């Protein structure tokens, strides 16, 4: 396993020295490198599209031939296109807000495609790409952002839990779910189940994430903690949350942590498959830090020019997750222009369908306010609902006050 990025002097090693602290440079190198994310980054495909051999991880993607890679490429293009469309629709007033995934396509598609049918994914609120890999129709995701519902899809059919907005909550929920898989005897061999849980760099500070680590470790839960370190928690860079690279957090709990190039779909797929396999065999949990970058604003209400430099963005553009696959495919002959054109056309159609759907989404009926508060409703709610409906009736035909 990796050595430390920086070291303290031995306890009692002479007078306490200021040198014991990591230098800002060290911190930055480890935490928010605009370089390659440090020596410990697992990468299979460079930003330039060169395939790098990995004795450890190649075996996890040896089934990924040109066709399969083209599939991953297509996935990424489609979710990016959908993301941009949704962002535009927010600008046009069709969505209340949008949470862009731009830049995080590889992390989401790579990890999402590593999952199997029986697995469960617990997203935060930015994992539209993972939703797509779980077979969730992205139209069903729009309701949250158009504010017509709080969560639309069938979580069970898709193995994709509702979005969780309160930072960190889902990590404990996922730990519980994974404990359940274990209690049901679904862990132990190649056919077993596992759970993956997504959260951000900022989330790592929350008590719930820690408790999720504690529980998963103590109960050997088949849970992959998938931290997308996109370098920012709204306006706060990762240094505001940690001195060390986040994958190293796992060290204190006794399970493995690994940093993967979050802009490398192949590496994300390989590392996630490895981690999930560990979990299926009862060796969970595992922490993956996908080192990536939030290329757009935090949400459509955010203005990142207030807190970060465009230089950083420009640097990260050179590491685009889609471009590197395109370069690799184009160079290796795995794909020709017709393929790229077709994917482009598919993604336009995909976006158009989304747009069409969004513009025509029905408003929820007002009485929905009272539905499903409980499995078994209450007299108070029933009364409020009835009063509300008869009150509303009073307005029919009238102009109101």
């Amino acid at each position, binding site marked *: 396993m990796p050595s430390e990025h920086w070291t303290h002097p031995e306890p009692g090693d002479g007078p306490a020295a200021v040198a014991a602290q990591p230098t800002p440079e060290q911190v930055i190198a480890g935490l928010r490198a605009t370089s390659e994310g440090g020596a410990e980054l697992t990468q299979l495909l460079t930003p330039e599209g060169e395939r790098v051999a990995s004795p450890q991880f190649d075996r996890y993607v040896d089934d990924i031939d040109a066709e399969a890679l083209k599939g991953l490429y297509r996935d990424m293009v489609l979710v990016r296109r959908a993301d941009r469309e949704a962002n535009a629709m927010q600008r046009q007033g069709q969505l209340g807000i949008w949470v862009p995934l731009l830049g995080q396509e590889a992390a989401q598609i790579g990890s999402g495609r590593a999952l199997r049918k029986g697995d469960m994914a617990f997203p935060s609120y930015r994992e539209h790409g993972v939703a797509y890999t779980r077979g969730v129709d992205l139209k069903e995701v729009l309701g949250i952002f158009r504010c017509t519902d709080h969560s639309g899809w069938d979580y069970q059919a898709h193995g994709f839990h509702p979005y969780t907005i309160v930072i960190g909550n889902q990590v404990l929920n996922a730990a*519980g779910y994974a404990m359940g898989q274990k*209690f049901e005897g679904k862990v132990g061999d190649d056919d077993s189940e596992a759970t993956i849980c997504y959260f951000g760099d900022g989330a790592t500070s929350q008590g719930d994430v820690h408790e999720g680590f504690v529980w998963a470790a103590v109960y050997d839960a088949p849970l992959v903690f998938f931290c997308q370190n996109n370098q920012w928690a709204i306006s706060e860079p990762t240094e505001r949350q940690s001195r060390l690279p986040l994958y190293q957090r796992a060290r204190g709990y006794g399970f493995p942590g690994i940093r993967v190039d979050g802009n490398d779909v192949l590496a994300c797929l390989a590392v996630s498959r490895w981690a999930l396999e560990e979990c299926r065999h009862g060796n969970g949990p595992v922490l993956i830090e996908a080192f990536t970058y939030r290329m757009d604003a935090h949400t459509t209400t955010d203005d990142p020019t207030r807190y970060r430099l465009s230089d950083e963005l420009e640097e990260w553009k050179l590491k685009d997750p889609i471009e590197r696959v395109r370069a690799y495919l184009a160079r290796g002959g795995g794909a020709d222009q017709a393929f790229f054109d077709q994917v482009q056309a598919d993604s336009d159609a995909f976006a158009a369908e989304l747009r069409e759907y969004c513009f025509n989404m029905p408003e929820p009926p007002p009485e929905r306010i009272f539905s499903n508060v*409980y499995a078994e409703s209450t007299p108070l709610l029933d009364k409020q609902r009835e009063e509300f409906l008869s009150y509303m009736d009073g307005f029919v035909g009238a102009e109101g006050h």
Partner: protein
Amino acid sequence: MSDLQKLTIGKAINLGLRRAMEEDPKVLIMGEDVGKLGGVFRITDGLQKDFGEQRVLDTPLAESGIIGTAVGLAVRGFRPVCEIQFEGFIFPGFDQISSQVAKLHYRTQGKIKMPIVIRVPFGGGIGAVEHHSESPESLFAHIPGLKVVSVSNAVDAYWGIQQAIKSDDPILFFEPKKLYHSGAMKSEVDTEATPDELFKSRVVREGTTATVVAYGPSVKVALDAAAAAEDEGKSLEVIDLRTLSPLDLEPVFESVRKTGRLIALSEAPSESSLTSEIAARVQEECFYSLEAPVLRVTGFDTPYPPAKLEEHYLPDLDRVLHTVDRSLAW
């Protein structure tokens, strides 16, 4: 057929839990020290021994973790029963309760059920240090999506815990810790009977002079007061609320229409509380029946004091009678 046993409240809950676990393998018990020790109040005594470590979980020490993993287990199809060691330690779990437990069913339009029971020993009078004697139930009654019940006797304890576990809604189950092992509170529990509905209040003593509504440990205080009042020629009707959210105030309205007077009793501080809610609803429903305003007998609006002072803090028989007199003098 009936099977009668004379049980304390604590033992009744223990047996209720056991029966629920026997009947449904998806029922789990989770909490601090609930396993080998059987909980600090021994309410889960013997369960880990008989059902194993995978159904009775001695969890790490963190309440958000207990509730948060229970949520995930519920999503997976389990029916977790979480024990909070003392009500004062429920607060680290407050976020998971209000953000996830209370809202997942609504969020998913019913697709996710939350059959979680959170057992909370609550209330004072046990001579304990800080954080061990509080009554935070009103906080949960204010949160839509949660149901809140409280038991006052062994029969309701035995059935109530089973009904709560069977419910597909999340339930905060407040247990009167002071009475857990009270021999005086032992009662015959017919384990073959058909229990009363969980979300119904109940008249536990009939009367005509005034009505006292109470729940949990305060029901005993109300009944004691009613017995004492009888000597003075006053006939108090006592209602055990049983369900704190949803409130079932029909029996209270009916009683107030008869007596014209209501005293709402609780150990909790008064501000923005369940007793406020009762007063608000009763004055609206029974506006023309009330001969005096709804009066409240509650803990004072202070943090729970050092236990040497708790006899003054907690509403007792005398304060109830004093308040009945105030009501009668209106």
